């Protein structure tokens, strides 16, 4: 048991530091994914001339593995666009882009599921199409797609382990550093795995509870 104390408990400061970086990256990526997904989806649905571009981007983000995209953003983008200029930025941008592709499709399904009558009701009381979107379509969509959004967030947390490969000091990287210093992988890696599993479990349970709460509040069934 002493290894647990020596390698995990006594190093909790490092691991905690890593965990905060993980959380930070996940939140930034999640924000980018929501904004990017919404933009891609709206462009796809409403901006005719840019539609092929949006479709191509969505398909590209969805059909390339996250690790490949991470390497691509990290090595190719800085020379191509002069940005991102840090590993940390590459990390969350790649994670966010991948998820924005998935969320764009989720949003599209949600928007198309809003009954026509709701929109027409909005127009008939004199709302502009922007108002109809802001006050009717988007709130309804957010409610129906809430579980998928939560699910996507857990995917981001799981994929965030990969940013350690480009030396972003997240929980995974701190754990691997400890392994490389002490050559005692059992306790450190087991503890890290448990922390990640607990984190993802926590996120998905909390997200589900929140989504259920909102759906019940607005009178949708919680199924």
């Amino acid at each position, binding site marked *: 048991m002493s290894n647990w104390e020596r390698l995990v408990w006594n190093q909790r400061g490092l691991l905690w530091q890593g965990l905060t970086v993980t959380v930070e990256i996940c939140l930034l990526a999640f924000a980018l994914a929501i904004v990017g997904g919404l933009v891609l989806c709206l462009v796809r649905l409403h901006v005719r001339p840019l539609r092929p571009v949006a479709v191509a981007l969505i398909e590209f983000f969805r*059909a390339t*593995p996250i*690790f490949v995209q991470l390497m691509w953003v990290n090595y190719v983008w800085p020379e*191509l666009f002069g940005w991102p200029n840090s590993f940390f930025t590459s990390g969350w941008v790649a994670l966010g882009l991948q998820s924005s592709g998935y969320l764009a499709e989720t949003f599209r399904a949600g928007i198309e599921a809003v009954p026509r009558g709701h929109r027409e009701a909005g127009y008939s009381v004199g709302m502009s199409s922007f108002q109809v979107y802001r006050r009717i379509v988007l709130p309804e969509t957010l409610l129906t797609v809430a579980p998928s959004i939560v699910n996507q967030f857990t995917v981001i*947390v799981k994929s965030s382990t990969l940013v350690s490969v480009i030396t972003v000091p997240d929980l*995974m990287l701190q754990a691997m550093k400890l392994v490389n210093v002490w050559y005692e*992988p059992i306790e450190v*890696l087991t503890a890290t795995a448990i922390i990640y599993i607990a984190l*993802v479990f926590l996120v998905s349970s909390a997200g589900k509870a929140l989504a259920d709460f909102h759906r019940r509040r607005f009178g949708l069934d919680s199924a």
Partner: protein
Amino acid sequence: MSDALIDALNPALFWEYRLVLLRGLAFNAYVFFAAAAVALLIGLAAALLRVNRARPFRWVGTLHVEVFRNAPDYIMIVWVHFVLPLLLGKLIGQRVEFSPFVSAVIALGFVYSGYFAETFRAGIQSIPQGHLDAARACGMGETTILVRIILPQVVRRMLPEAVNQFVSLFKATTIVSLIAVPDLMYQVSMVTQQEMRPLPLYTWAALTYFVVIYLVAGSLRRLSEHWRQKIYA
């Protein structure tokens, strides 16, 4: 900037190493097929545990699903590669070592067994009680019922969902390069170290994966749809 873009899109370097890279892609396929077999078998076992009548069995099944569905692929691969051999070695008092390929297959197989277990379970639970009663009334044993009544229906019902999971599994095989399985990404990073030109290499690696996954996923979806309709008809 346009110089960089032209460099990134120039396929010459990627084409020069096509044999090595193709061998890498083949490794992706090997890992995929082996891990998919493991995932399907263990997933089915876990699903059967989860629908078992005895409560302890159900707990084990649920624990399995919750652990593996919530575990990131990367940490599981690293854990299986570095920790599991040590633990097994302590257990049998001998030095155990996994080749990177074996670790990758075990780790990805177990992680995806969690997802497949849920898909199987949904399929199993959607089978009407009447079918089971009818089978029992004909005098079928539990195994016969599983093989002839439950599984054929489950397979058809879970196909669309399973196709999605196969696609995710294939994407996950790219990270096995991190424990030095010589897959496409591994070869790309090796060539990059030699040529020092990441731009075209990583761009074309991404494009290659995109084309492969896009085509394979599309045709799998069409095939499974066709097959479902043909059998249901």
